[in-house]
């Protein structure tokens, strides 16, 4: 028997290894079709949603789940994790086909990963029964909901970055005269180009322009690695790097050449935009590089910065109790440029019109139904309830929801906005600007290919922060990014990535 023990041990190891290898050798699957349950479950269900820790984003689920339970008997439970852990958790669940989550309220930019892993189901059949889709949704959002011709997710939060500015400060005639004396020209309110924005921010930086006894700043942005800093750089590079929609058959090409996935990130357009971003940090921004997203919102709302480029959340926060900028905030497209780098012809092109290229950073929080759920119909009931005009109108006007207007009808019924103390004209201007950015012809949809977070968080952002801290030149850093992006594309499979990128762009 003593001699048999090692044999038994080895046999056990071999058997375990074989079981694991067989389990891990899965075939690439197509995204599962929505299973149709013949009948509704008679007993009450508990449906789980993986999402971000509240109050933002998960807040609306908790707010409306009790009403849904009264209507259907089903309980909806938000499983909350920090922002940085949502994608790893969802991806782990997708890779292991775990049924831990019935729904995801997660980023639209992760759609390619989820579709590639067959973890989310198409929603087209469900949507066919909804009268409002797509007629009540901006085209820019319909595009983002779609991947390879099918609708896999539904955006309930319209995310794109744009300019917020102090109307009262930038509109002050004395300040305008002083600026003209110093810079030799009159600025637009709001600034129309990025170069003008840098000048205006430099002018308003580091002095007490609202006479409250405190020093204020021209501009505020997020500069911290691991805290979504990379999105804040895109508004600075896109106008110089995106070919206008009337000059190219597929608009919004920004990150890669769609023919071969060769990075565009180190072309002269990107480099120029990045240099300008560094310049505003040095001359026109609040000092320090510890600023994170919450600081951008707070500093603007507390009246410490004259301008910011951020997601729409600043809007509802200007009506919060601590705000000193209620009714004093203007909303505009992120500034553009009067030249762009034509990467197809390798040359700079001057423009008469300003080349705006707003970026749909993050694209938006989006509802998904997982292919692992046993109750897709009940999940759809909840999603449909949350996306209804009544419920969504409440959410987009609530500061702590984190949701921005995404239905055209959100600009028509302003009762929820007025209930949250908004001035009607201000609410209209805010909603309209959000929808204008969404549907801008040159707008860039944030990258939806497998490994998107690795391209940005793993590679781009570390190098970006070296440019912002002045330890690297824009060109030097972006060359390294391009080299590492290329290597990552090879590792993930260039042909497959090209295919995904073309689906993402609806490439023609």
């Amino acid at each position, binding site marked *: 028997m003593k001699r048999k023990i090692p044999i038994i041990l080895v046999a056990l190891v071999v058997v375990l290894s074989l079981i*694991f290898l067989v389990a891990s050798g899965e075939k690439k699957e197509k995204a599962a079709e929505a299973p149709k349950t013949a009948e509704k479950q008679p007993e009450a269900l508990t449906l789980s949603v993986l999402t971000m820790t509240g109050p933002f984003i998960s807040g609306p689920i908790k707010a409306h789940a009790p009403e849904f339970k009264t209507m259907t008997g089903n309980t909806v439970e938000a499983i909350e994790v920090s922002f940085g852990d949502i994608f790893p958790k969802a*991806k782990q669940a997708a890779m292991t086909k775990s049924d831990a989550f019935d729904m995801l309220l997660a980023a639209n930019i992760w759609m390619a990963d989820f579709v*590639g892993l067959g973890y989310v189901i198409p929603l087209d059949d469900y949507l066919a029964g909804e009268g409002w889709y797509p007629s009540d949704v901006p085209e820019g959002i319909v595009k983002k909901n779609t991947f390879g011709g099918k609708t896999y997710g539904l955006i309930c939060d319209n995310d794109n970055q744009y300019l917020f500015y102090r109307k009262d400060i930038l509109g002050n005639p004395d300040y305008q005269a002083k600026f003209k004396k110093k810079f030799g020209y009159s600025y637009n309110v709001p600034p129309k180009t990025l170069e003008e924005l840098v000048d205006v921010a430099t002018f308003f930086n580091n002095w007490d322009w609202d006479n409250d006894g405190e020093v204020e700043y021209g501009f505020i942005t997020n500069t911290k690695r691991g805290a979504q800093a990379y999105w804040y750089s895109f508004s600075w590079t896109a106008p110089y790097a995106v070919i206008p929609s009337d000059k190219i058959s597929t608009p919004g090409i920004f990150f890669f050449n769609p023919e071969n996935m060769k990075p565009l990130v180190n072309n002269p357009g990107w480099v120029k935009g990045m240099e300008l971003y560094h310049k505003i940090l040095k001359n026109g921004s609040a*000092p320090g590089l510890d600023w994170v997203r919450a600081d951008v919102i707070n500093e603007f709302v507390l009246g410490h910065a004259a301008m910011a480029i951020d997601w729409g959340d600043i809007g509802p926060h200007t009506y919060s109790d601590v705000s000193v900028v209620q009714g004093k905030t203007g909303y505009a497209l992120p500034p553009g440029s009067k030249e762009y780098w034509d990467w197809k012809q390798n040359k700079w092109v001057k423009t008469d019109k300003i080349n705006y290229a707003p970026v749909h950073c993050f694209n938006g929080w989006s509802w998904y139904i997982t292919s692992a759920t046993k109750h897709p119909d009940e999940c759809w009931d909840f999603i449909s309830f949350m996306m209804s005009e009544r419920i969504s109108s409440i959410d987009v006007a609530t500061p702590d929801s984190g949701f921005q207007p995404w239905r055209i009808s959100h600009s028509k019924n302003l009762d929820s906005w007025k209930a949250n103390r908004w001035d009607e004209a201000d609410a209209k201007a805010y909603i309209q600007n959000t929808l204008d950015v969404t549907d801008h012809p040159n707008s860039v949809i944030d990258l939806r290919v497998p490994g998107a977070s690795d391209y940005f968080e793993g590679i781009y952002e570390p190098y970006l*922060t*070296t440019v912002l801290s002045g*330890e690297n030149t824009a060109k030097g850093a972006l060359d390294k990014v391009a080299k590492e992006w290329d290597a990552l594309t090879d590792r993930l499979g260039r042909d497959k990535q090209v295919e995904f990128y073309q689906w993402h762009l609806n490439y023609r």
Partner: protein
Amino acid sequence: MIGLAEKRMKYALIVPVVVFILVVAIFPLLFSLYMMLSIWQPGTGGIQFVGFANFKAIGQDARFWHALWLSFVYVAILLTLELCLGTLIATVLQKEIGGKNFFRVSYMLPMLLSPVAVSYIWKMIFDYNRGPANHFLSFFGIQPVEWLSGEISAIISLVIVDVWQWTPFMILTILAAFEALPEELFEAAVVDGASPVKIFQKITLPLALPVIVTIVLLRTIDAFKVFDTIYILTGGGPGTATELLNFYIYLRGFRAFDLGYGTAMSWVQLIVIIAMFMFFIRSLKRIGALR
């Protein structure tokens, strides 16, 4: 004579333990050996055996070598500081001073706190605009420091946090070693007219050396695996200025889900730690602390 049934019963009783060890220890170890020679992005296809390709890639991965080098620098600096401070404070606490017990307890508090909580506290302290650290410096006319966003200052900040939290461990252990030394030797040295410095140099330190080398070994291994403070304080930035090896392995293995490559890097890290372990064991043998 032991009966056959009794023999079988013996083996039956050890089977659960053997299976448990196989499942939680032996199998993962063997599987990781296979993984380091493979490419596997779960969900996108099976495991693909690639031989030593991951190690070849590691050889060409500038970020890996940067992370490894940075880990050595980080460990060397903080261990030097912790050891010097630990020895100094332990020497002071050994003396008969007023409030000795209060200091002994209060010095231990940092290491009792969760590293995550400690990191968040230090994140606030180091904040460029609102942190007490820069506010304090301003009293002396010193310009604010980019504690967490400067290439050099960020790694120094990580060292400060680690030294603050783990020097107490050094103090506790070295103090225990000092207090266990035989009193007669010191009495004899004093009678012979040896100065306090000579006593420390010739008696205290040599006798406490085995304990000191052991805690240096433990702290080296621990410091090499630092993760939580980096994750919370700097996220590895600015750039890759605080991207130590353990953090880089996490990024590649669990963010990019490049599990084969991540496993290969983990094995390299393990080999480095084993090499350091062997070095310390040899040192212990050389000084006679181990036979």
